[in-house]
């Protein structure tokens, strides 16, 4: 999967094509590009899926969700999300790094970095709440690089690779690693990175965390 930042022009073209606003010649030209440009094809696929998802569950996305929906979310523990959102509203473009482990529905976001852990040797604790089915760990990407990277989590005790992801791209200097709650066993994991597409070995980072599902 090749997810890249599209140019403004391509974002506009992609949108116009999806909405059937291009004349036949331009639509054909755009469709031909889909066969030769993997990043554009991936963006088109994802946009189609996103649009379909939005149509499937519009209430979740609408900013003006019904009072009933909001009450239900509130009862599920959304105060934390709201607090995080208020913080996020003040900052554009959107960043997750300053949000303290927000929960969105059943997804928990955790920013793991040395700064938040006070620069100590103690591994950062990642203990998802009971309501979280999915955990997204965000780590700082190597400075000035956007990837793609290969990332793996290695158990500190058994030295076994617990999880490995390929072709990760950094967004706003952050790499996002999403996994289901049960994908990792309890333990301490070290984050290791390598540049994708090269035969370079994985290099350990300064980041490690204790996972407690």
């Amino acid at each position, binding site marked *: 999967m090749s997810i890249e930042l599209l140019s403004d022009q391509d974002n506009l073209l992609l949108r116009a094509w999806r909405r059937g606003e291009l004349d036949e010649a331009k639509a054909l030209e755009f469709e031909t590009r889909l066969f030769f440009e993997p990043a554009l094809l991936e963006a088109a696929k994802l946009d189609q899926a996103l649009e379909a998802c*939005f149509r*499937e569950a519009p209430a979740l996305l609408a*900013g003006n969700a019904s009072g009933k929906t909001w009450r239900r979310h509130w009862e599920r523990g959304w105060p934390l999300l709201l607090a995080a959102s208020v913080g996020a509203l003040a900052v554009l*473009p959107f960043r997750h790094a300053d949000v303290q482990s927000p929960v969105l529905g059943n997804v928990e976001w955790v920013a793991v970095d040395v700064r938040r852990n006070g620069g100590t040797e103690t591994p950062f604790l990642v203990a998802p709440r009971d309501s979280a089915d999915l955990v997204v760990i965000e780590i700082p990407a190597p400075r000035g690089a956007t990837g793609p990277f290969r990332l793996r989590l290695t158990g500190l005790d058994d030295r076994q690779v617990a999880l490995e992801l390929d072709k990760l791209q950094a967004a706003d200097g952050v790499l996002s690693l999403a996994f289901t709650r049960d994908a990792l066993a309890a333990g301490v994991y070290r984050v290791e990175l390598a540049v994708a597409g090269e035969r370079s070995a994985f290099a350990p980072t300064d980041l490690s965390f204790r996972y407690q599902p």
Partner: protein
Amino acid sequence: MRALTAPLEVVLRNRLRGAPVDDLRQETLLVVLQAARAGQIQEPRALVDFALTTARQLMLNEDRKRQRQRTDSRGEMDDLPDAQPDGFDFVVGEQRRHCVEKVIAGIGNERERQLLHAYYLEEQPSDQLQARFGLDSGQLGRVLYRARQHFAALWNALAFETI
């Protein structure tokens, strides 16, 4: 042929507005394969042109066939509800709907979801969106990029267990 499948599917999905694409995709690939074997296509660009032209022709034929059936049945078909387009073929069923909700809930913060909702569902023009959310085109592009990236990561993580 494998390299043709994914883009062809995306094109058909867009042109057919969410109706099932499997049959047309297979039919198109079959025609392309036969033409390639017969030596009618010499280079990749011609292969793509031929595939797109074939797909358009087959879609037109399909459309005409439907129109004819509708006329032949003297309007009886008009009483039947149209098939509901579902965008992605896999986004169906209760379990998958639940999966979709999980994915959506995982996209960004509240403001980002509002923006994406306006972008994808309300289909507001980009310049209006930029004005409403105080973004320039570059920032809007980055939000879209993040949404696609998070969506792919979450969907893959979920697909590992539930799809």
